[in-house]
């Protein structure tokens, strides 16, 4: 018999052992079909039904003196009949979704918004609405929550909080979850009911699958999948059901383990979830888009937004710039596809190595230091004004707040020019819409060095590590012989990043990073350690960075960043980051 021990976060104290009952979200059914309880209900009736059931569960807990836990279920009862939620469901049904799809999609959209909210206590509540949605779907389909039929350790990726109260006492011996945090409602309820529980057990579902494949289960459970949970020390051991009298060896001390991102119902592992460190510091993972068509890949990778839409792709390879209508359609497509997730549109960064025939000007010997980015607007206001008008109309049509960003900001004057352009464009194109949120790229060293003043003029900063490196080290990105000077982990570059972060924090505005560094595991770790709040990268990098951050503690990353700032060179920084990753991944 092999026993695999998975490190986890202690969520509710105590130890328990028993056969495994695997919880799978009902949108991805496996095992026995749910039993049919009653005839299907219309959506509103199902929502009322779910609301009543949750209120009753809450009232039961309140009568037992558990007011805090009752409050959780009572809040869910309010969510079930929430007018905004049900309105979103109706709109999706009207657009052709099935009722169950509509309920789940509307809940996922709301969960993403709640997860992104500024209050961490609130953000931890995002899964509650998903739980409510599954309950409404069950009420609608006339099925009941499929729980264990004998005393079991309930294991899985995640577990709806209400399931903890719904599974009859005595059948729920312990809980082991791959996701979640100790502040999640499922953990709070487990503590209240005295059920040992662990969360954040990275690799648990895979271990369960291996065990499940390996064993032929006897009718008494012997030989079937078995688990032991230590909710005090923080581990879970899975194996096959031992003969009576034998138990898996006790686990080792927990150490810091991982809090993987939360997955939506039925999602493929790695394809969804929110970026966070092992100890739960949220780091939204955003996508860089080169073309509007990339938005599909961004969504598939589970991007929590678009941190950098490089709009110059619309302009390249043409004899004349695209019309405002063509631009508006392209922007609207991306904004609509991302829905409630934020999208930052960077105005076209033309010039430099992105040559287009129409910005007129003398040929430059050194275009990287020439008229590019926001500098173009000094001579050719019309190009960026037309683009900003198209963005204003697209955002108004999509019903979202526009987020626009200026490339190549070097001076405070550049930021003021950008604001003037935006004001002019919005006045013409979308006077009734809310003002856009303005961002400045920090990619010219001068911007980093004057970030304190810059941060008071814009709504967010985004560090562009590619250009910041080439300008800081005076090393053209295109010259292979200078490769050693083009590593963005150079401590001199990192010191500039730190200045931008400190300025943003002092001004109370968000700061993100885009560029190749944000999509590299080493780079992502150092950037987060420096205090960068969001990372934007190629969609293909998101899964890897998500996994890297989920295995690292925020304190470890801060220490890494401190050491990186003092390191002699980029190679030393990479060594430190790789070493920390090795330590994290070799933890049990």
């Amino acid at each position, binding site marked *: 018999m092999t026993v695999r021990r998975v490190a986890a976060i202690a969520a509710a104290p105590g130890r328990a052992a028993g056969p495994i009952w695997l919880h799978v979200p009902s949108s991805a059914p496996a095992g026995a079909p749910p039993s049919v309880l009653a005839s299907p209900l219309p959506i509103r009736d199902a929502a009322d039904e779910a609301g009543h059931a949750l209120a009753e569960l809450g009232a039961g807990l309140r009568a037992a003196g558990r007011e*805090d836990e009752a409050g959780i279920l009572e*809040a869910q009862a309010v969510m079930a009949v929430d007018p905004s939620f049900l309105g979103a469901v109706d709109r999706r049904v009207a657009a052709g979704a099935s009722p169950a799809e509509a309920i789940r999609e509307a809940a996922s959209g709301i969960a993403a*918004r*709640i997860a992104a909210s500024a*209050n961490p206590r*609130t953000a931890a509540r995002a899964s509650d609405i998903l739980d409510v949605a599954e309950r409404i779907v069950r009420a609608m389909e006339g099925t009941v929550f499929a729980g264990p039929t004998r005393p079991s350790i309930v294991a899985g990726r995640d577990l709806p909080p209400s399931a903890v109260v719904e599974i009859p006492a005595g059948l729920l011996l312990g809980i082991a979850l791959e996701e979640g945090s100790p502040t999640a409602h499922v953990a709070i309820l487990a503590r209240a009911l005295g059920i040992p529980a662990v969360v954040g057990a990275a690799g648990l579902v895979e271990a369960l699958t291996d065990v499940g494949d390996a064993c032929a289960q006897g009718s008494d459970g012997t030989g079937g999948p078995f688990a032991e949970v230590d909710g005090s020390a923080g581990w879970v051991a899975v194996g096959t059901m031992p003969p009576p009298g034998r138990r898996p060896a006790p686990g080792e001390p927990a150490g810091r383990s991982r809090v993987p991102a939360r997955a939506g119902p039925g999602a493929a592992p790695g394809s969804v979830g929110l970026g966070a460190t092992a100890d739960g510091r949220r780091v939204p993972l955003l996508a860089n888009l080169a073309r509007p068509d990339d938005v599909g890949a961004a969504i598939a990778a589970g991007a929590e937004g678009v941190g950098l839409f490089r709009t110059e792709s619309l302009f390249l390879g043409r004899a004349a710039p695209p019309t405002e209508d063509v631009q508006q359609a392209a922007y609207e497509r991306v904004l609509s596809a991302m829905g409630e997730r934020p999208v930052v549109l960077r105005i076209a960064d033309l010039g430099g190595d992105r040559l287009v025939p129409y910005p007129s000007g003398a040929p430059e010997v050194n275009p990287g230091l020439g008229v590019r980015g926001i500098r173009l607007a000094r001579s050719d206001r019309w190009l960026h004004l037309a683009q900003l008008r198209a963005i204003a109309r697209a955002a108004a049509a999509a019903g979202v707040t526009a987020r626009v960003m200026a490339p190549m900001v070097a001076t405070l004057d550049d930021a003021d020019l950008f604001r003037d352009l935006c004001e002019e464009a919005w006045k013409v194109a979308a006077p009734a819409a809310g003002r856009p949120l303005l961002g400045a790229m920090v990619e010219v060293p001068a911007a980093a060095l004057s970030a304190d003043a810059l941060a008071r003029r814009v709504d967010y900063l985004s560090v562009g590590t590619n250009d910041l490196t080439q300008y800081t080290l005076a090393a053209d990105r295109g010259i292979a012989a200078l490769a050693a000077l083009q590593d963005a982990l150079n401590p001199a570059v990192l010191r500039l990043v730190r200045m931008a972060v400190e300025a943003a924090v002092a001004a109370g505005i968000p700061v993100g990073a885009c560029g190749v560094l944000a999509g590299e595991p080493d780079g992502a770790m150092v950037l987060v350690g420096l205090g960068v709040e969001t990372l934007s990268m190629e969609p293909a990098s998101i899964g890897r960075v998500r996994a890297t951050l989920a295995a690292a503690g925020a304190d470890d990353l801060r220490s890494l960043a401190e050491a990186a700032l003092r390191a002699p060179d980029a190679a030393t920084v990479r060594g430190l980051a790789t070493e920390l990753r090795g330590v994290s991944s070799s933890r049990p």
Partner: protein
Amino acid sequence: MTHRVVQVRRREGLHARPAAALVRIAAEHGSPVWIARVGDPPGADADARSITEVLALGIRRGERVRIWAEGPDADGVLAAMDALLSGPEPGEEDGG
């Protein structure tokens, strides 16, 4: 329409349980009630009768919110919401 600005003093801001209580107060009022964080851009306001919108605001302790309401009892509903937002958690000593 009447409005007031309130500083949120509940220890952990406007999380699920106080949000549910707030929504209950707003829903009992027959006319629209809104809430927004002071300083947020226009359009970032929430229907106070919707718990999901209120939660998505992510209001933290110490932040100031603007609440406004329509209808004959607008003052009454705002007073009740003010008391909820500016009071400490039940059983909690407010440390300032």
